[in-house]
Each structure stands twice: as structure tokens, then as C-alpha cells.
């Protein structure tokens, strides 16, 4: 098959399953785009394969985001968090999603910074909002919230009305006028 040709979603899933059969715990599709669920120990080898394979060529990381399945029963994803990598290939024109299951008790995942520079900020934001530790990310500070902020606001168990950010805000008043 000549390179730089878009593969169908099924073909991509098949290629990943052929190569990493044991690591893939599930697969699904949504909105015309498939995804695979993989064990988190295997995430970096799989992403490396997706990036470097001659026919896949996923050279662009579109987004790193997280799904919190706190009140959801997802059959092939028993853990609470799923870290979602949205990949795209500029050369071939296909797109794909990879999900890594991350348990609540030990929210850690290897960083993909070495593969795509875009992962630097994507993982910072994911860390900021959901508290997942990306081991190997050289600059895992908060991205959107202030550095002294407590808690992870997009987790499903974060209280809707906040944790007193409104009341505990340090106020300044106009001086004697």
C-alpha cells in the first residue's frame, strides 16, 4: 500500500490489535470515529507505534483530555478516569482516539511529551482539572487555575457551588474616601 493514504477506522483498530493484542482492553466508536482502550502501562509504546508507523503517521496530537466515569458504568472501562489522546495525521488525513484507563487510587500516567510537544500543555491542563499525574512531563504546573488553588474542579465529585472560593476570596476595599 502506498504511504500517505487515509486508512479506515477499522483498519487502524486492526493494526493496533495485531501489534498490541494484550494491551487493548476494548474498542468503540462515536461520531464516525473509533477508539481503542488500552492498559496504561502500554500507552507509550502504543503511541510511539502510532506516530512512527509508516502507514499510520500520527504526527499531530490534537488534544489530551480526560473523561471522569464516576457515576457511569462503562463495560470495557472499569477504571474511573480515561485519558483520551486525539490524534491526527497531517500526511494521511485520518484521525483516531486512544484511551488509557487510569484508576482513582493511583492517578498516574506516562507523559507523551517526548513524542509530541503539544502534550506539554495538554497534560498540564488535564492535570490542572482532574489531578492526573503525568510522570515525565517536565513542567507539570497548573495551567488555568492559580498556583495556590486547592482541588481539581472538573472532577465529577467537585461540589457544584465550589469549595468556598467565593467566601474565602481575599478582598480589597476602597480606602477612606
Amino acid at each position, binding site marked *: 500500500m502506498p504511504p500517505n493514504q487515509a486508512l479506515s477506522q477499522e483498519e487502524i483498530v486492526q493494526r493496533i490489535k495485531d501489534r498490541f493484542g494484550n494491551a487493548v482492553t476494548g474498542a468503540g466508536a462515536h461520531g464516525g470515529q473509533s477508539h481503542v482502550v488500552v492498559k496504561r502501562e502500554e500507552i507509550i509504546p502504543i503511541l510511539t507505534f502510532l506516530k512512527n508507523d509508516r502507514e499510520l503517521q500520527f504526527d499531530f496530537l490534537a488534544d489530551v483530555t480526560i473523561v471522569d466515569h464516576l457515576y457511569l458504568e462503562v463495560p470495557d472501562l472499569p477504571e474511573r478516569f480515561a485519558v483520551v489522546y486525539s490524534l491526527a495525521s497531517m500526511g494521511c488525513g485520518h484521525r483516531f482516539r486512544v484511551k488509557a484507563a487510569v484508576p482513582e487510587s493511583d492517578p498516574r500516567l506516562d507523559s507523551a511529551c517526548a513524542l509530541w510537544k503539544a502534550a506539554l500543555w495538554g497534560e498540564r491542563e488535564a492535570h490542572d482539572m482532574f489531578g492526573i499525574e503525568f510522570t515525565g512531563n517536565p513542567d507539570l504546573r497548573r495551567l*488555568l*487555575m492559580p498556583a495556590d488553588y486547592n482541588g481539581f474542579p472538573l472532577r465529577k465529585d467537585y461540589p457544584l457551588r*465550589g469549595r468556598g*472560593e467565593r467566601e474565602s*476570596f481575599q478582598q*480589597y*476595599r*476602597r*480606602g477612606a474616601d
Partner: protein
Amino acid sequence: MGNVLENLNPDSFTKDTVFINSLENLINLTRANSVWPLTFGLACCAIEMMATGASKYDIDRFGSGPFRATPRQADLMIVAGTVTHKMAPRVKRLYDMMPEPKYVLAMGGCVIRGGPYVKYGYHVVKGVDLIVPVDVYVPGCPPRPEALLEGIFKIQKLMMREKIGDRARKSTKPEVYQPA
């Protein structure tokens, strides 16, 4: 101004008070008709602020055209948009960097009291008046350009009341309020 000068008794020029009063008027008149705002677009309200600056509403008619990109040259801070907790220290710092006498115009529901985020926003400061003293509030989500212009007229009225000997009136450091 004209009337003031015509009705003056020439003898009274020797008296300081008359002279100081008219100088004050003159200075206030020039200041109020060249209010230079600090560019401060934080969210959707800033789009309406830009519309106010563009040709249709033409804020230049009232001398407020030059939006300054540095606080050192600005008289007025138009806070337009959502002030997040992360942005709050920066807003305060820019306000502190502006030279006296300075004014703040709070534009939009977000800046006044948190706007759509008033109940459920973990990230929004519920009113910029918690950080800096606000002189004029312009409600709306977003306020129409006419409303912003009206707010600037209010600022101009405040400027006409300035006293020369009182320029540092607002520089008293705001006390830090600790909620009980």
C-alpha cells in the same frame, strides 16, 4: 468657562481663589475630554467595547479613542469581561501601576457580580470591586455600546469634580478586608 471670565471683576484676579478655580476647571475640562482607557478585554464584553471604539459608535467623538496598551498612560480602566481568580492579581497590579487620578469602569454582569457564574463558577471573582475600587458600573450581558458611552459620560462628570489639591485622593491603599 466663558461666562466665568466675562463676569470677573478685574480686581479679583489678584485673589488666588478665583484664579485657582478657573485653572481647575480648565484642567478638568481637558482631562474629561481626553479620557484614555486601558485596553482590558477579558471576555465577550470586550467585543462590545471594540464595537464602541469602531466607526459606528465612534468613542473618538468624546476623546476616549486611544486605548492604551500600557497602564502608565491610562486614566481609566474599563474592565470588560470575566475576571478569573488567575487574572485577579494581574488586574490589581495593572490598577496599581496606573498614575493618579485614575478611574475604573466595571462593564458587564461578570465584572459587577460574577454574571452567569455567580452561583456555580469555581473560577470567577464575584465582582471586580473585590479587587479594585469601581467608580461606574455598566450592567448588561454585554452592555450595548450606548450604555458604555453613557458610563464614560459618568466618568467625565466625575472628572469635572476633581480638585487640584486632591489628586492623590484615591491613592490611599485599600484596606484588606478579611471575611469573618
